[in-house]
Every structure is written in C-alpha cells, then in structure tokens.
C-alpha cells in the first residue's frame, strides 16, 4: 500500500503542532517524514533505544498502540490525524512502543530525532505549540512527583503506601500511552477560558447553571401550583408555613467551598471548589431580595438586579481581569502622583 502525498500533507496540516504553517510549508514539512505501511495483522516496534524513538502520525487506518511505562503496559487506539511520541523525542526518554494493524492495513508517517531537530530549525513556528505541550506535560508530571513525595513523607504503613504508589504508577502509565487527538478541548480552552482565569470561569459556569436551574424549577412549580407539594414546608407548632428557601442551601455550598479552599488543594480540587462556589452563589443571589427585605415573595425585582450585578462582576473577573488590574494600578499611581 502506498501513502499518497496529498493525504500526508492534508493529515499533517490538521495536526495542531503544524496549524500555524502555510499549505506549501506543510507540503515541504511532509517530505521530512518517513512513510511506513503496516499490513493487516503486522506490528512495528519503536522506542527500544533513544535512536529508535519516533514521532508517529497515523495517515490511514486504525493502529493499536501498546506502550511500556513504569513497568506497566497500556493500549490505545490511533485514528488518522492522531499522533504519539513527539514529547518522548524531545526529552530523549526511551519508551518501548508497538504499533499493530489489527483492523486492516495502516499507513503512518514517522520522524526521528534528527528529523525533528531539522524541522524545528526550518519551521521554528512549530516550537511555540511544542513548548506549550511540553509545559503542560511538565506541570502534570511535577504534580505527580509532589503527590508521591507527600505520600512518602506521610509515613503510611508499607502496604497502604505500596497500594497508593501502584495507583499513581498506573495513572502515569496511562498518561505514557496517551495519544494526542484532534479534539475540541484545546479550542474550548483557547476561546472560552481566558488564560490564567480558570477558577473564575468555573465560578461563572456554576453561577449561571444554578441560577437558570433554580429559576426554571421555581417557575414550573408556580405555574402548575405545586407549592404545597414541592416547596418543602417545615412542620411545627406555628399555624403558618415555614419554608427553607434555597438561598440557605446556596449559603451552605458557598461556606463549604470557602472553608475547603482555605486548606491546601491541588489545581483540580480548586476548579471543583470554584464550581461549587458558583453553584451556591447562584442559589443565594436568586433569592437575594428575600433575605434583604425579610419577605418571602419570590418575584422581587431586587433579586434579578442583584443576580445581574453578580454575573457582571464574575464576567469581569473571567474576561477583563487584566484590564481592571491595570486600571486599578494606573489609578493608584495617579493618586500617589497627585499627593
């Protein structure tokens, strides 16, 4: 089976590492890659030694990748456009992999270490996305190092420590077998989440979600006159009804997220706490007028105004934080200058 030049250039053009290159540059880049066909049922091995490390891009068919990392073997599937091995090639960290053509013929293109150096010299624009991928991988691996060092420092019994270490080993092996695919995740991060603004973004997401949810549920309950059945009325000696408003549940969520965030948490934990805070804040602001006026009437415009202000503040935090920081800094400088 031969690998057509057009399809190689087209597939390489879809790889995010090369997306900043023009079509003719991608065509020139494609000439640097070695074309390899793997017939159905056959396997090719790479990465036994540093010299045999390869950056692999699947051009046609579905390949099965088996990799050995941290003493564990992992399997992954690669479809056209999926890639593997560029970070290993950069670090020179030998990792044995086998590519099999289990579901029919597979066409791949590969690049060795010298080839990667050559394309980086020829097309330095590739270095930027590559540096971003290296930095992301380094951040994750640094987190693993820290987790394992903390496990060692805790002085756990040997069997429990061994079990926790084995768990991390599996996670690292799974990461070692990770294939980079053409996904919308990067696009989402680039267009929706402003760099360095992840916690405020998840706060805003939680806020909008819970606000919309609470408004919709209350509207449906009032429309179908289900207050008596669905508004949880607290029984007691008082003849009048007492209802635990949902701003109280929101307050519990806000308080719990705030208290938990005072203690050391990882990056993922912080994202979750920001989301929980947003959920709680949505419930609290939805009934802002109730506790402001001590009046159980739900349809008060003050609640909507408060929700609008809170959403606007969160939006500023997510998308205009740099502007407001610079504005505050400049204002402060002006105030100091005039004194």
């Amino acid at each position, binding site marked *: 089976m031969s690998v057509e030049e057009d399809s190689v250039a087209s597939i390489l053009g879809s790889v995010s590492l090369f997306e900043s290159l023009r079509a003719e540059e991608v065509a020139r880049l494609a000439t640097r890659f070695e074309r390899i066909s793997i017939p159905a049922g056959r396997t090719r091995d790479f990465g036994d030694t540093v010299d045999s490390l390869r950056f692999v891009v699947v051009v046609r068919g579905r390949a099965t990748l088996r990799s050995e990392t941290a003493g564990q073997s992992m399997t992954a599937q690669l479809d056209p456009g999926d890639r593997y091995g560029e970070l290993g090639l950069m670090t020179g960290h030998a990792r044995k992999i086998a590519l099999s053509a289990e579901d029919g013929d597979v066409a791949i293109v590969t690049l060795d270490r010298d080839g990667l150096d050559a394309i980086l010299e020829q097309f330095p624009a590739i270095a930027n996305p590559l*540096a971003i991928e290296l930095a992301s991988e380094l951040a994750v691996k640094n987190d693993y190092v820290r987790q394992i*060092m903390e496990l060692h420092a805790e002085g756990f019994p040997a069997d429990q420590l061994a079990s926790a270490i084995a768990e991390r080993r599996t996670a690292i092996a799974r990461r070692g077998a990770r294939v980079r695919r053409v996904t919308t995740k990067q696009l989402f991060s680039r267009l929706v989440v402003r760099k*360095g*603004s992840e916690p405020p973004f998840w706060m805003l997401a939680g806020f909008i979600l819970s606000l919309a949810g609470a408004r919709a549920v209350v509207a449906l309950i009032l429309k179908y006159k289900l207050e008596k059945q669905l508004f949880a009325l607290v029984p007691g000696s008082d003849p009048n009804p007492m209802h635990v408003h949902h701003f109280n549940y929101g307050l519990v969520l806000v308080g719990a997220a705030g208290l938990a965030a005072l203690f050391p948490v990882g990056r993922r934990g*912080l994202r979750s706490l920001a989301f929980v805070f947003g959920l*709680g804040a949505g419930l609290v602001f939805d009934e802002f007028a109730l506790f402001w006026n001590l009046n159980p009437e739900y349809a008060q415009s003050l609640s909507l105004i408060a929700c609008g202000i809170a959403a606007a503040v969160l939006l500023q935090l997510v998308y205009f934080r740099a502007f407001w920081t610079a504005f505050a800094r400049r204002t402060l400088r002006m105030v100091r200058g005039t004194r």
Partner: protein
Amino acid sequence: MTAVAVTTNAVSAAAQTLKRVPFLALVDEATLERLVRVSRRVHYRPRQILVSELEPGADVYVILSGDAEVSVDARDGSRTVLRKLGPGSAFGEMSSLTGELRSATIAALTEVDALIIADAEFDQLRETRPQVALSMARELAERLHAVEHTLEQLLGRNSGRPPAKPSDRGKAAKGSLVRAWRELVVARQRDLAFITLAAFVGTLVAVRLSVHYAFRFDLTPRELLRVLYMSGFALLGGSACTSVLTFRPTWRRWIALAYGIGLALILNELGVTLAFDIFFKDIHTADPNVAFDVERLYRRAESLRAIAIGLVILVQAAYLRRFYVRAWFVLMTRLRRLRG
C-alpha cells in the same frame, strides 16, 4: 510592592539582565529594550511574596536584582524550599504557556527588583521571535526528562518514612496547662482554621452581648440585626470567593478572619433568616394577624443548634484535620483494594 520609574540607562541595564535568561539569550538588544519599556518594573521588600502557589496569573517575571526563593506548601502545612533565584532568573513562563495556576510560591529573600512581562507581550514575543519558543521547548524538554527520571526513582521506592518521634521538649512539659496553651493556641496562631475558629468564637461573644443589650434598652434592635446578618452574608460570600482566588499568606489570614466573623454573624441569626415565612398566611400573602416580632425570631432554637454545629466543624478543622486526611486516605485505599 512598589512600581519603579525607569530611565534610559536603567532600560539598557535591564535589557542586559534579560540577556542572561536562557530563553531570551538569542533575542536582539532592541527587542529586549522594547520589552523592558512595555513591562512593569516592581520593587519587593524582603519576605514579600512575588507570586503565590495556586494563584491565577500568566505574566512572566524576571529578577533584575536581589535574591528570591521558590517554595511549595505540603498538605500538612509544612513548606519546602525548592531552589533560589538570583538576577537573570525568570519564572512564570510555565503559567504563560499553559494558562495553569501558579505551581510554587516565590518570596523575596532580599530587596528585589523584578520585571513583570505581561502575558500578552510574552505571547507576542514567542510568536514574532520563534527562537524564544525554541529555546523554551529545549529547556522544558530537559526539565521534563529530569522529572521523568525522578518519577521513575520515586515509583521504585515503596518504603514510607518512619513517623517522627515526639520531642524531648514535649516530654518535659507533659500534662502542663502551659503546654496545652502553647500547643492548642500559641503554636496555631498562623493556622487558617484556628484563625477562623478564633474569629467565630470572638464574634459570637461580642454580637450576642450587643444584641442582648440592644433588646434590653431598645436600641433599634431590628436595624442592628439587619446590619449584622447582611454583613454576615457579605463577609462569608466575599471571603469564600477570595479564598478560591487569592493565595498570598497575609491576605489568606484576613480571609480566614472574615470567614469566621461572617459565619458567626449568619449562624447567630439563623432563626431570623430561616423563619420569616411564619408571618405569612401562605407563600404569597402576609398574615395581618401576626405581628412581625424580630425578637421572637432571634430567640428561636435554630440559631443555637447551628452555632453548635459550626463550632464542632471548625474545631475539627483546626485540630483534627490531619486525622481526617489520613482516615480518608486509608478508607479510599481499602475501598480500592476491595473493588480490585
């Protein structure tokens, strides 16, 4: 932290220091001088924090003069110093590339002058001068290789460190009230959970006394209660929000203080905020036969129950946090073993 005015000579000197940063070494002088002009130059006093772990932010810092240290905080609150930074050292480039939260705390050891390159400027520099990205890619690859090597060594080591032995000082003071005071209060002055607990208890005492006398001498208790519970909402909401966004140690102590005060104010008046429906005939109509008696609401039992629960949670957080972390770890390990 103070902004520093930049003269032409200072620009040239700062550009020379930027040349010492490995990934900026190949950039021409004119570009570096432009970078210095568009960047902020900030002065830090000793012990001042330049960047805090887990803080959002993507600007790149270059130390122009002075020394700083890189440290991380463990879950038990202990601090580990990773390395020292001097003139020509850069940090923050990882966050600029990935958009991730800061991974370590950088504190000034001496008087430090730093150049803060805005994230957008640094992005532009990498795009217009690809050799910067190339140098960074090579440097990051080396660091990744070193970290992978460390990981392999750590994964091969299964023995835990023996638990620390109690100190002789502890033995000598065994059973004394002084020791209890020292261990339970003095040693925890900087612990955020303890600050929250202390603020909670102190506020409760002050507020209950104030409200008691406001009712007794009719000093507009309804207005006082309203100001107190709205302040509680504002303090709790504000401190919870900033505790997710701010990681400077000094600010976090203020956040913990505000959280404790806010929680106390809300729980102290939970009877009011939970029970205002009882003055309504149904969910929409106010009951004309029932007078709005705020003192009756204030004295309801819900507040006392909530205060007790809040106190128990804060005491657990201050004194038994480590036990719960370990218990959670052991439980999860056992569960995973059962499953697999």
